[in-house]
């Protein structure tokens, strides 16, 4: 247990350091690109621009801005007011967008794991059968096809030809189904391949051969002795999978008109919404860091060979 805690503390320290670095780099990058949040088709009169600058503390020297904003984040978790979406603070934007993105990610991941693992198991058990070839072909396709192509095909198929799902929007389970499917499918394909490889490797292991020789039912051997070992690579892939789902949703949110965080990410950057962009970058950093830590932790608990350090 002690190494668990020291591990967590170490990771937390790293996270703070990473966040600080991300904050610094983003801050410098954002202010070095041309343009400012108040540039528009109409030139803003200088006196008015000064007022706007003052409202967002942009009239202070850069170092002062850097410090003030950092202090706000650290002491009050206050990411400031959005410069583009004037009526909202960054925290409010995150509070509205995060549950939506999380819902989508959860469905996509659960779907990917269930589909991927089942397909992988079937493929490995019926190795070299038609089912195996078909599933692995589908998996290669799933990895290769970008998700916006997948989304277009899915819309054509399930919205217009077979009219079972709505074309977009958010609020009902039906509306979640298609985007979650498109988001989860590439991950599922990857998991299927990992599971299959893991299964095949485990099937050649001595303890598995012994179990089969002992006369245990094949099903029991697969479930008790092969699958747990075969799933270890899948667990370690979950970290990158989360990253993939989070970034993949940027595109899908646009196609399916989903009010998640992803669309803010892009808009904040193009509109020079300094505060919102910063909020987004930091949030994604925290999310990825936490998810990776959890996966590492799970991996260490499940696999007796792995030591936390």
């Amino acid at each position: 247990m002690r190494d668990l805690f020291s591990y967590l503390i170490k990771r937390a320290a790293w996270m703070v350091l990473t966040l600080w670095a991300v904050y610094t780099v983003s801050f410098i990058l954002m202010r070095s690109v041309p343009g400012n949040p108040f540039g528009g088709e109409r030139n803003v009169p200088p006196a008015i621009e000064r007022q706007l600058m003052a409202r967002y503390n942009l009239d202070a020297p850069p170092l002062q801005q850097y410090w003030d904003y950092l202090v706000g984040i650290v002491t009050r978790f206050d990411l400031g007011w959005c410069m583009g979406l004037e009526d909202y603070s960054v925290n409010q934007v995150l509070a509205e967008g995060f549950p939506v993105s999380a819902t989508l990610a959860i469905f996509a991941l659960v779907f990917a794991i269930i589909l991927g693992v089942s397909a992988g198991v079937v493929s490995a058990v019926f190795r070299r059968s038609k089912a195996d070839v078909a599933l692995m072909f589908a998996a290669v396709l799933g990895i290769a096809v970008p998700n916006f192509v997948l989304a277009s095909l899915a819309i054509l198929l399930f919205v217009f030809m077979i009219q079972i799902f709505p074309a977009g929007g958010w609020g009902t389970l039906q509306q979640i189904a298609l985007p979650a499917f498109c988001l989860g499918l590439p991950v599922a394909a990857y998991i299927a391949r990992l599971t299959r490889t893991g299964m095949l490797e485990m099937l050649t292991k001595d303890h598995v051969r012994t179990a089969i020789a002992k006369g245990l039912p094949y099903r029991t051997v697969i479930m008790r002795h092969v699958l747990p070992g075969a799933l270890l690579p899948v667990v370690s892939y979950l970290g990158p999978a989360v990253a993939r789902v989070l970034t993949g949703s940027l595109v899908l949110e646009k196609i399916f008109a989903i009010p998640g965080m992803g669309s803010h990410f892009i808009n904040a950057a193009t509109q020079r919404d300094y505060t919102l962009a910063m909020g987004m970058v930091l949030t994604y950093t925290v999310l990825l860091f936490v998810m990776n830590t959890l996966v590492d932790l799970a991996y260490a608990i499940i696999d007796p060979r792995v030591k936390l350090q």
Partner: protein
Amino acid sequence: MPPEVRRGFVIFAGLVVVAAVIWAARVEHTPPAEFAFQNGTDPSTIDPHRATGQPEGRIIFELFEGLLRMLPEGDPDPETGLQPMTPQPAMAETYDISGDGKTYTFHLRDGIFWTDGTPVTAHDFAWSWMRMLHPATACEYAYLINEVALAEPFNKSIVEVGDRVEVELWDRPGESPGGEASLQHFPRGTMKYGTLRNIVKPDEPKIAKDASEEKREEITQDWRERWIYEVDVVELESDGSFAADSTATLQRYSVSPDIAQSDDGIQQAHWVLVDFQHFGGAQAIDDKTFVVRLNNSVPYFLNLVAWYPSFPVQKNCVETYGSPMWTKTENIVTNGPFKLQFRRLRDRIRAEKNPDYWNAKNVSFKTVDFVSLESQNTALNMYETGQLHWIYQLPTSVMEDLEVRDDYHSAPKLSVYFYKLNNDVPPLDDIRVRQAISMAIDRKQIVQQVTKGGEQPAYSVVPPGIAGYKGAEGLKENVQRAQQLLAEAGFPQGRGFPKISLLYNTSERHRPVAEVLQQQLQNNLNIKVEIKNMEWGSFVETVQQEKYEMARYGWVGDYPDPNTFLDLWVSDNPQSNTNWSNPEYDGLLKSASGELDPAKRMELLRQAETILATELPIIPIYFYTSAEMAKTNIVGFAPSALDLHPLSVLRFRTDDSQPAKD
């Protein structure tokens, strides 16, 4: 890890997953709105004095209401399909205009209320206009009502000795002398009124000759902040009027905290502005009468009054919650045909019918969704599956299929697509070169083969469709003449013509236009054009710093009058960025603004436009047209020149004799 822990962990992880799925599956069901439409990008604000874009405008027009409202009048034009819209009585029941066109008296109707139950009065308008013009509100549209007496000096915070001024002391709620400024400029600190007797100015700072405009501006502003204002302050009676026999006391103010701190005799102030509240051109005579005084007559003034920046907001609401918190669903107080029900970022704004609206009996829709949608394909998908009833950004790839349908609407819009030329960069400073470039462009090819949305080729800048105005002819396409002109300018067959760069903001719509233009100039004039694209923020900055040669631009009219397209190009307009200036042009626009006879005025504007279309500081390409789809069972839907679609006059066909085809 011991095996029990491992097993326990697997069970725990399983439970977490199940819990997550259950959490994710909780669905708050929102019934669909009666009427839903695509509203473009997410509105950045719904504060009428802060908003600028069209998506924001559509929402504000329904939530709020001004003295007048743009509403359809008469039948659509049989030729263009345009529905004429005029400013019609809204919060004001009637209005009088004085003979010289400089005084407008609005009489508010009875039975108009805010959504919190309080009546809408003329004082609300006076306060709202003051808020809109206040420099700290930073309303980008404030310039529209510059002709209102004292509006411009108030908005630009210009004071001169002898002016009646107001001084806002540094004591807003939560402020201490010399401390941090409160960012809420309403409610205001203690107000002092009086006459400005003197301004003590420190020595004007020397500005290096090579300083950028930005730097200059900054130094000047910093210097102005160090001014000390000496004001003869007059006390107010308890009813707000000036005391007749009170003696003025001389007070000294400065907006600089340092100066105020260093001298006990100087009080720190937020603003020293002209006294717009008492002497400005927007006054409430009583609860029902609102009088506007203009410096010069503005023929399109009624249109401005019906435009959303001049809509009222409620003082109490703004002052209680502050900005922008007052716009939150639970706080906002409005006075329009619909009221805010909820607002979901990147999703929708739901508004419901306002039962207390004075004309509620003629509002049909119970609920309306303003759906935030940028993707054209998604919008079309949602329209086709019935989730949306009206969409206005159609994918060009399927335009040909959509054009022939009954639910397709297209009509000219009051907006123009053009290229700005930097008239300071040779050889673009030569009028013959500019004319040659313009005459060598085949605009028909651009609108028919590239944009394909029914756009009209433009040879001048004012779009057709403005009542009483016939635009300038402009120079039509004429490649031979263009070659001749180029030769006269010293570039026979384009020899020796430097490569010019054409800049556009990254977009799938602008790239093909630029490419065709590049090809046409190469083929017709042997001029090499280099196409560059920049993402919007950088693009705008590059053009504003005038570091470009040719740049794409578009302009949407703010009000249906040629002036909105022409006054962009007067010499001192910061919007122009072309370095073009023509005293005759400036003079014509100036005399047009003082001309009372509409026909004469239009003629003056036409002359100005002719100069513009001959000298070509900008090269017009086409006039936009709207292309939208609206379900055929909507009654009252028709395109309008300003692209306004008041939802309060729309309704669904009830007899269903002509069901929607889709």
